[in-house]
Structure formats: C-alpha cells, structure tokens
C-alpha cells in the first residue's frame, strides 16, 4: 500500500522535478524566471502534437524541449539583451505560453495517444527485484518506473555533477552570485545566461511533456494546473540544489496525489481541501524557507539584477 503510494508520488513528482531543475538553471545564472508555467505548457502542447503526428517518442520529446527553449529564448532576449524587468517578463511568458497552449490545444481536445506510442512509456518491470529482502520493494519505488521518470533522475544527477564538479558549472554559479565579478574574471556572462536559460526552458518543456504524454495522457486544458508556480517555490525549498530537488519533487508529488488516495480510503475529508494541499504546502514551505536563514540556504546573490558592464 505504502509502496504503491510512494511509486505514484515519484510519478506525480516527475514533472515537478523537471520544472525545478529548469527554474534552478535560470536562477543559478541570476535570472528569476516566472515563466516556468508557460514554458511547461508550451512543451506539453508541442510534445503532444508531435507525438500525434510522428508516433515517435524521441521526436515528441525533442519538440517539447525545442518549444520550451523557444519560450526561454524570448525571455532571455528580453531580460539579458534588452535588460527588461525579469519579473514582468516572466509573467508575460507564462501568459503567452498559457494562451498559445490553449489556442492550439482546442484542436487536440479529446485526442488520445496511439497505443504503440504509449507503450514506450510503460513502467519497466525488473525481474527478481521483489525477491531482495527489505531493499527490494524500496528500490522498486524508483526502479519500476517508466523511462521518462528515469530521464528525470538522470537529469537531476547530471545537473548536480555539472554544477558542482565542472568548470562551466563553477563559472555559471559565479555568474549568479556576482555577475560583475564573473565578468571581470573573463567569463562570457551573456553567453552563460543564454545557454542556461535555454537549457532551463528545455527542461521545463520536458516537464510539461511528461504531463501530456505519460501522466494524463491526453490533452486537457491547463494541464499543468499551477505546477510551474509550485516549482518556482520549490527551487527555494530545495536550496538551488539538483540533488535536493529530487526529494522536493517526490514530496510534493505525494501531496498532489494525497487527495485521491484519501478519497479511495473513504475518509471523510473535504475534497477541495485535499486538492488545495500542494498549494497550501507551497506557502508553508516558503514561510519556513524565509525563517531558516542559514548561510547554506541563500539564493544566488545577483538573482533578479540586470547586468550592464559599463554602468557607473
């Protein structure tokens, strides 16, 4: 029972995981991107459309990433090159993404993905796994999942290695911490910002695609239902750390499905209250985050500041 619940928590957490990673890369280079929700929706609709056309999972994911990054490209051009206000630009991107997904999604309404597409994303079953005592069922939470979930974990771990073990990772952290210092050190700040904002967009696109291709899997309006916003909060909760992002995503995935589970147990709780849980928890998490002000839990220092080299 618990294993089953945790398994679904991992699944529900996967779109969040991608979105958190996407938001994290944006913020690590000093850009507060509130367009996460918009980029997720762009990825969701593009992935779904590509899947219907091509019936090929790679092409579907590729399109989700491309459209996610296209949204990010608009944002990057405005905030990095034209130095517009990051908050306003991000909000605009969300409105744009939502609108575009809704507009195009009208045609996709009611369509179902063909069976031979969906079989690519069937949970794997690993032989003998359950026969390992104690550890077996526990491992099955993470391992008996579809390939897309695997991709999420791999992305998180690779992001962590990239961020903390490589030269570009060090440089990109420097850009977010002090853009002027990074620039004076000879780092191409503009290039780093563009690359990682676009990378973030691609990850958000994947997060959206998981919803439309695997989780639901059909098109419905507002398919992300605020997950992009939760991700923005969860970046803070997980301290801009990709490893912690995995835990944060699963925790909130769990809260997301808690409602259904409790209903099926016939416990009399108002369903609206249960559906409110993830959002309520988000607020609580933010409050906790701002109370525990430790040195290990501070945002990148130059987050949200536009940078212009010759400014006096």
């Amino acid at each position: 029972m618990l294993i089953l619940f945790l398994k679904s928590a991992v699944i529900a957490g996967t779109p969040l995981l991608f979105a958190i990673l996407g938001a994290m890369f944006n913020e690590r280079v000093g850009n507060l991107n509130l367009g996460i929700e918009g980029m997720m929706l762009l990825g969701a609709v593009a992935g779904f459309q590509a899947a219907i056309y091509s019936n090929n999972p790679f092409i579907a994911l590729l399109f989700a990433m491309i459209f996610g990054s296209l949204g990010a490209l608009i944002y990057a051009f405005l905030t990095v090159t034209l130095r517009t206000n990051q908050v306003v630009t991000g909000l605009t991107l969300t409105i744009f993404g939502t609108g575009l997904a809704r507009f195009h999604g009208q045609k996709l309404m009611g369509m179902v993905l063909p069976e031979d597409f969906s079989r690519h994303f069937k949970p794997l079953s690993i032989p003998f796994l359950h026969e390992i005592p104690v550890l077996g069922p526990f491992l099955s939470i993470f391992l008996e999942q579809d390939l897309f979930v695997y991709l999420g974990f791999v992305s998180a771990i690779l992001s962590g290695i990239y961020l903390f073990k490589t030269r570009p990772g060090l440089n990109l952290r420097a850009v977010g911490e002090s853009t002027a210092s990074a620039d004076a050190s000879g780092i191409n700040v503009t290039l780093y910002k563009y690359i990682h904002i676009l990378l973030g967009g691609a990850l958000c696109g994947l997060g959206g695609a998981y919803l439309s291709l695997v989780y639901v899997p059909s098109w419905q309006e507002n398919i992300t239902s605020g997950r992009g916003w939760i991700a923005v909060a969860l970046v803070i909760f997980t301290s801009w750390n990709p490893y912690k992002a995995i835990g944060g995503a699963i925790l909130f995935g769990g809260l997301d499905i808690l409602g259904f589970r409790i209903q099926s147990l016939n416990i009399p709780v108002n369903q609206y209250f249960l559906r409110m849980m993830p959002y309520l928890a988000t607020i609580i998490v933010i409050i906790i985050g701002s109370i525990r002000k430790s040195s290990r839990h501070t945002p990148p220092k130059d987050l949200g500041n536009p940078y212009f080299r010759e400014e006096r």
Partner: protein
Amino acid sequence: MEKTVFVEMNNICKTFGVIRANRNINFRVNQGEIHALLGENGAGKSTLVNMLSGIYTPDAGSIEIYGKPVKIHSPRQAFELGIGMIHQHFKLIDVLTAAENILLSEKGSLFLSEKEALKKIQKVMENYGLLIDLSKKISDMSVSEKQTVEIIKVLYRGAKILILDEPTAVLTPQEIEKLFVILRNLAKGGCAVIIITHKLNEVMTISDRVTVLRQGETIATLDTQSTNYRELTELMVGKPVDLTIERLPSKKGNLMLEVKNLTVLGEHQVKVLDNVTFDLYGGEILGVAGVAGSGQKELCESIAGLYPVESGSIVFEDENIVGLNPREIIRKGISMSFIPEDRLGMGLIPSMDMVDNMLLKDYVNQPGIAIDRKPARQKAERVRKRLNIQTPGLSTPIRKLSGGNIQKVLLGREIDSNPRLLITAYPARGLDIGVSYNIYDLLQEQKQKGVGILYIGEDLDVLIELCDRIMVLCDGRITGIVESKSITKEGLGLLMAGESLTALEKEEHLCRL
C-alpha cells in the same frame, strides 16, 4: 639599460553622457617599475585603467601593449594580454573558496581536478612569497586576505601588468606595509605595477614614477625621487594647498552629552560596546580613534537612536535619550552623518535628487499631506553653494555625483539643520586633499558656533590636529581619553591596540601637561 615599454596609451578619450572622464590622456608604463597614478577623485584614474582591463572601451585614442597596438574589448582579452586588475571593490564571489575564485573562467578540462590546480596555485604563491588558505571561503576572509586572493588570481593567470585600484584604502598600516613588500617583489620579478591612489605618502614610499591626472587630463609624469609632496599636491589640486590644520580655539561650553556605562550587544550576543563612559562639551571636537569595527558604528547609532541599547544611559542636556526614536532625537538637535566603507552614504537615497534628499529630514515638519518643495530647493541651493558641490543640477539623482560630492551633500544637510550635537563618522573618507580640508574647516566653523562634535576618524594625523580631545576604542572598550595636544601618533596606535594609559606614560608616548 633599455627599458621595455609595457603599456602605452595615447590620446585616450572617454565620455559618460555629458561627463568627459578622460581627455587626450597619455600614459606610459615600463617593465619592472611601480608606477603611481595620482589624482583627486573624479580625475579619471579608474576610468583610464578600466580601459586597460577591458571594462570600458575608449571613445578615441590608441593603446599599445608590449609595443603592439591592441583593442581590448573584454576582460577576457585583457587577461590574454597579461593585464590583471585588482579592483577597489573586490571582484570575488563570496560563497566560493579562494581556490575556486582563482580558477574561475580558466580554460581546461571539463572536470575540475582541484588537487592539480592547487599545486599550480601553490607554486605561484611560493614564487612571490604570498600566503593564504586556499580552501577558505571568501566570506570568512578579512579585507587584506581578499586582496591577497585577488593578487594570486591575476598572477596565476600569468599577468605581467598589474593594476591596483586604491589598494590601501581598506588596509591597516601594517597590512599596507605587507602589500608594498609584495608589490616590490612583483616589480623585481619583471612585472609592471600600476597603483592608483590619491595618498601622497604612498606615492612617495612605493612608486618609481608617478603620473598626475587632473580633471581627466594628464598633467605630468615625474620620477618620484626628483619630486616632493608640495609639488605633487600642486599638480594634483592645481593650486598650492596648505597641508596643516590649524586647530581653532573656541570657548568650551556646557556639558552637552554624557554617556554612562553604555553597553550594546552585536551578533551572537557579543558586547560591541562595553561599559563606555565619556562626556562631550559644547564647542569641542571629541575625536574617536580605533581600528575599524571597534564599535564606532554602534556608538554613533546608539546615540542617534538606531541601535538598541542593552544597558547604560545617554544623557543629552539633562535628559536620558535612551529609548527615544530617531525622529525625537533629531528634534532635540542631534544630527548624524555616517559615511560607510562603500561610501554610497547612509542617510541619503542614491536615486533621488538633492532636493528630495533634503526633504527626507524636513518633510515631517510641514503641515498637511502635500509636500512643498520650495524650502528644500532653497536649502539644496544653499548647501550646494556653501560646500561647492559639483553637480549638473539640483534635480540630478545624487548617485550620479562623485563620491566626494555625495559626502558633501550628506554633511551639508546635517550642518544646515543647525544641530546642537553633530556626530560625524569618516566625513573625509576617500576624499581628495582639497575637499577634505574644506570639510575640516566646516567642522571647525561649527565648533566655534558652540556645537558639540563627535568625530570618528581614521587618519591619526588629522585626529591629532583637528580634535580637542581623543577617545580611543579597542574592541568596544575605551582604552583612553586624552588631550590631543599631549599624545603622539605612536601613542594613539598603542591605545588602539589595547594598551592602557598607564603603560603609555612609562614609555613616554604621553607627555603630562
């Protein structure tokens, strides 16, 4: 011996909006020399070197490095040419370690192998006799350690031309001595060192040659040995300047401020002021000396009502002002101007113009909800004239003014409110000679009017010449209050380091009157 020219800048021009920061500047630096770039604030020193380090690009003129004409478009390009700049405000990432900062933007394998890199850094450090804990985070470092990291960083990248922008502004005398040893080593090792400063004694001690800039123009390049303080000052300011402060006499007034057993707590419940007791009379300047961070800031702020007092009393004209809010304290005629280390000013709002900044303290005295700008405008005009503030206009945001002018706006506003007690901390911080002496004159003028002045200062010479009495703080405790006529600079230094007055008498740093 023929000297190689490392840097040659010809007819450099650079304008920012309407301000012409550099006009036809010519500047040459040879290998193996320490070249001082001397000038008042706003003379264009930083602008000039920022064009070498790739932060700015010149509007006109040519740059030659090692005899080859170059165009430097980015800091990266500057590194590749072997130009390393140590900025006045360090360009280091606080959350990273020293080693990580040094390795930033280095080309090489994708994965960082810290061990190998550390070896390379250590070798550079040994070559130049530098010492630092490479695994320490920048945020845990002292200012002088940070500076060392910056120096290692540029050397590690193979810099042959080192530029230091006001490197001594934040160091103690001992740290400055250490820095100068390092710089001499570098010059001996074949580097060219450019040091920007407005302090004459540093020019005389460290440099081989000196180039003087004034108002964006090159005035002269001289051999340091063949020049002197007086000549350099004249070149720098443009007119002869008297370098002594004459302590003006004034009638000692009534007891104005009486601080008794004042104790305040800082972070982690540490006492930042410990049982501080002193008094201040009208018509006197009481100096406060001490190493930065000895409790000066907390002292100012507790008197001004900005800092919570743990115990003790602050009696201003027979009334205990502990617990009053800042506005009530201002109403009583206590005025504070504090110039923090970054100089952008406390008590001023950078994006507002002079008029609005004047209004900040006055608007509460106006009736109704609408604001009348007229009196503030008059006041701003008065302050501008009186202190000779250089500004394009009263409606220019003050952040666009130079540091010295911003400081004058702050001090001018405080003085114009006719305070009874004036607390001023580092009013001349980072200012050039001419303006500093203006400010000392202003303070003396106030003193003669009977105002009590608490002057927190850095420069011991100035403290001794300007103040009537000097109180020395060390770690939040008073180590001595002395008549400034009876103390030497060395004596003050010892008190600052925590020696007691009785110990001083034995060593004869203090002459009994």
